[in-house]
């Protein structure tokens, strides 16, 4: 009996412990934040916007009950000297408690990014409600607040658009980067590497994009687009990379999942599309007579996706030629990315980190001068490409006899 009494009384000890107890909250008292935006207000303070999910609206459209009567999300905005001040001040507007754990992304205005990211990211890393896997984007055109306010008909959760769209475009096109809070903090803190963050831009009239009327257009008057990669130095945004250069940067970071590369086919320019299905990149850095040498080794596996020229794809020599061209094209892209980064003295690829790992003693002597050293370094790129098949047929249907 005493034993059971003891066990029971033991059960009550946790009452006096700190822990999750303070976070007791029924879910219907939560305002789920789907995305957050950070802008610079006119007076130099932060202007923080939250996109809060209107759950009953979304749930009713999901079950097929008459949706579209009210907006799926509500955006609240407030200003403060620190982010948390703005967040807490926003409680004057929101009836429920803001809940950040289910955030899909955080959007930072370019102005803020140019001034420096370090202050913004402290709270994103410190707060237990924030997740380190949270996607980060830089608002290129338009403020973060405007981007959060845009409603798109096919996506009932505009906040998730931030994360999902970034994921999709990164995995299909390969010109953008899925960078999350952890990556950015890593880039901000570690020596020899700088963060790189993708951009998001608002296209069209933002005023109309905020209202329900945008949901009734087949071509929305306002929409957003994920585009470009921002280069940082010392936590401050320096330059944007776009298109093939951006893809080169993604390749260098070994984050290329899938992409399509156009190469010349005989005389016809860019007439042959190769899909790269696997890509692997290894970086190396060495000091040669006081001058750094950066080496890049790449390997690709691809297949012919589209051929708009008469070509014999069942011939191994042709394939060899195509592989060669693919290697050349990828080298060109990667070199252009490295050149851009070198010009801006932004080592977003982590060559410095590689050097640090391979030669820690030498790294100590140059770590403070790394950015200028990096910008003058010699770059050697080697690539190996394999094209393993050509889809469901060899020749284009119109060229076969």
């Amino acid at each position, binding site marked *: *009996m005493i034993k059971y009494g003891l*066990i029971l009384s*033991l059960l009550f000890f946790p009452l006096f412990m700190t822990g999750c107890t303070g976070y*007791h*909250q*029924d*879910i219907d008292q939560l305002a789920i934040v789907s995305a957050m935006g950070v802008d610079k207000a006119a007076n130099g303070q932060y202007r923080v916007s939250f996109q809060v999910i209107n*759950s009953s609206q979304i*749930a009713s459209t999901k079950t097929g009950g008459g949706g579209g009567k009210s907006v799926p999300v509500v955006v609240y905005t407030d200003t403060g000297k620190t982010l948390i001040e703005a967040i807490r001040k926003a409680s004057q507007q929101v009836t429920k408690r803001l809940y950040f754990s*289910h955030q899909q992304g955080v959007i930072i205005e370019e102005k803020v990014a140019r001034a420096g990211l370090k202050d913004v990211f402290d709270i994103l890393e410190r707060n237990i409600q924030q997740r380190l896997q949270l996607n980060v984007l830089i608002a290129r055109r338009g403020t973060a607040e405007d981007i959060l306010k845009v409603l798109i008909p096919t996506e009932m959760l505009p906040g998730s658009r931030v994360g999902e769209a970034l994921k999709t475009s990164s995995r299909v096109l390969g010109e953008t980067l899925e960078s999350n809070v952890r990556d950015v903090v890593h880039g901000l803190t570690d020596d020899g590497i700088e963060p790189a963050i993708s951009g998001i831009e608002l296209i069209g009239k933002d005023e109309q994009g905020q209202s329900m009327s945008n949901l009734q257009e087949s071509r929305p008057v306002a929409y957003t687009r994920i585009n470009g990669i921002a280069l940082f130095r010392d936590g401050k945004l320096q330059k944007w990379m776009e298109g093939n250069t951006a893809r080169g940067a993604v390749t260098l970071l070994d984050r290329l999942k899938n992409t399509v590369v156009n190469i010349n086919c005989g005389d016809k320019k860019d007439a042959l599309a190769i899909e790269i299905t696997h890509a692997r990149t290894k970086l190396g850095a060495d000091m040669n007579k006081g001058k750094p040498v950066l080496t890049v080794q790449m390997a690709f596996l691809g297949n012919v996706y589209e051929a708009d020229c008469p070509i014999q794809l069942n011939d191994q020599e042709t394939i060899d030629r195509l592989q060669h061209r693919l290697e050349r094209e990828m080298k060109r892209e990667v070199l252009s990315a490295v050149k851009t980064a070198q010009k801006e003295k932004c080592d977003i690829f982590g060559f410095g980190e590689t050097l640090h790992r391979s030669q820690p003693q030498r790294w100590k002597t140059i770590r403070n001068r790394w950015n200028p050293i990096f910008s003058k370094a010699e770059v050697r790129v080697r690539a190996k490409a394999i094209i393993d098949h050509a889809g469901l047929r060899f020749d284009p249907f119109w060229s076969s006899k």
Partner: protein
Amino acid sequence: MRPFERQKRRKKKKGKDQRGQVFHEESSPLFHDLQKNLNKIREELGHSTDLVVREFEWDGERKIRFAAVYIDGLVDNNMVGDFIMKSLMLESRDDRQTISRKTAFDRVQENGLAVGEVKITRDWNGLILSILCGETVILMDGWDEAISCGTKGGEKRPIDEPTSQVVIRGPRDSFTESIRTNTALVRRRVKSPNLWLETMRIGKVTQTDVSLMYIKGIVDEKIVREVKNRLERIQIDSILESGYIEEMIRDSAFSLFPTLYMTERPDVIAGNLLEGRVAILVDGTPFALVVPALLNQFFQTTEDYYQNYWISGFLRFVRYGAFLLSLLTPSLYIAATTFHHAMIPTTFLITLVAQREGIPFPAFVEALIMELMFEILREAGIRLPRPVGQAVSIVGAIVLGEAAVRAGLVSPAMVIVVAITAIASFSAPSYNLAITARLLRFLFMLVGASFGLFGIALLLIVVLAHLSSLRSFGVPYLSPLAPFVFSDQKDTVFRFPWWSLITRPRLISQKNMTRMEKDLRPSPPDKPTEGEGNEK
């Protein structure tokens, strides 16, 4: 303190007054006079109307008076009529003249009764008991001895299909209320001279037969001795069901977990006896007890051994999972919705939030209402006559599910949670353990609502600690998992094919471990026999 003490003392006194019971502490011998004896019997039994006293006499050299005494309904009427009355009346009609009064008694005992079981009773307690057990007692004038004949009989329920442990493949007979039928059902399955049966009477008033069954040579003698000791300790007025015995002899008096296995299937008893367990059969109930009972036993069904072993192993997994579901689902739901919102997938969280909007109660109260409603419904369904019970379950399903959600009292998700819990608890093969889960569930809900997953984890640890402290007749309750017995894993969570179940459970049988020969795995013959080869 004072009033309490006084009360206690008074109680004691009362106990002393009632001590007499039916049977006298000291038994007195019978009288010589027949009439006196018969009067005393009538008196002892309170002139009960079902007592039959049939007097008759032999008219020989001197008249010899007899009486047959039995209780109507307890005896087999045909037997009494054909083999006792008839033979007593007709037997030795021809040479009655020569029978003296002195030889009459022996004559009757040895030749006069055409029944198998005959014994001599000399004292009143024995006499009354034999009458009450359904024996026919023959008294003779001038003798202070009585002959009791085994004429037990009367109406019995026929052997029926089991209702609490139904199988698809397997025998369809189940125990009845008659202990003799039950022991016979087991003996029919185990035709071994080593199947031993020991019977004792427990219950001062009810004098219930309680039988111990085990297979000598397989069973651990220590366990048999322990069971006997515990049974002999019982001093109670009545045993009406095996549940009385279960609560009197279990290892931990307060535990929620059953440490005796209960079954109404003779094949289960036979299987358990062959594993070295001891069965306790109680007269008057179809439910027999098996000791020692281990936790994993409550997740097994007899069908596991009859059907394909792959499906048996899979189903055991399902049952363990279902037990955890029925124990934890509501508490996990409460914990997730009140503390750990981050754990719920975003899209589901949005749906949940939308559902919970407008529900007046916090999740815990909501869950408590629904679970209690469900328990009430279940109780109502059991108690009511079958046709009405079905109606109740339909009404209940509609009320609980549709109407409660429409009325905004509970959220649809909560209905699903309760439904999952209910279905999971129905899937438990052992009713005993399902009851445990039913009760513990509420404790888990309370803890989940107060401390979240942290509390649930703590309570799980407490339950686990309790389980590992339990023993069933000396065998650790969690074995063969804790302590881990490698060789017994073949029949714990999985059920390996029969040809690999070579040994019996180690901690239970302790000796005579081998169940079968090795290398019994069936396989096609290595070479075609010569005859076949020639045919080619």
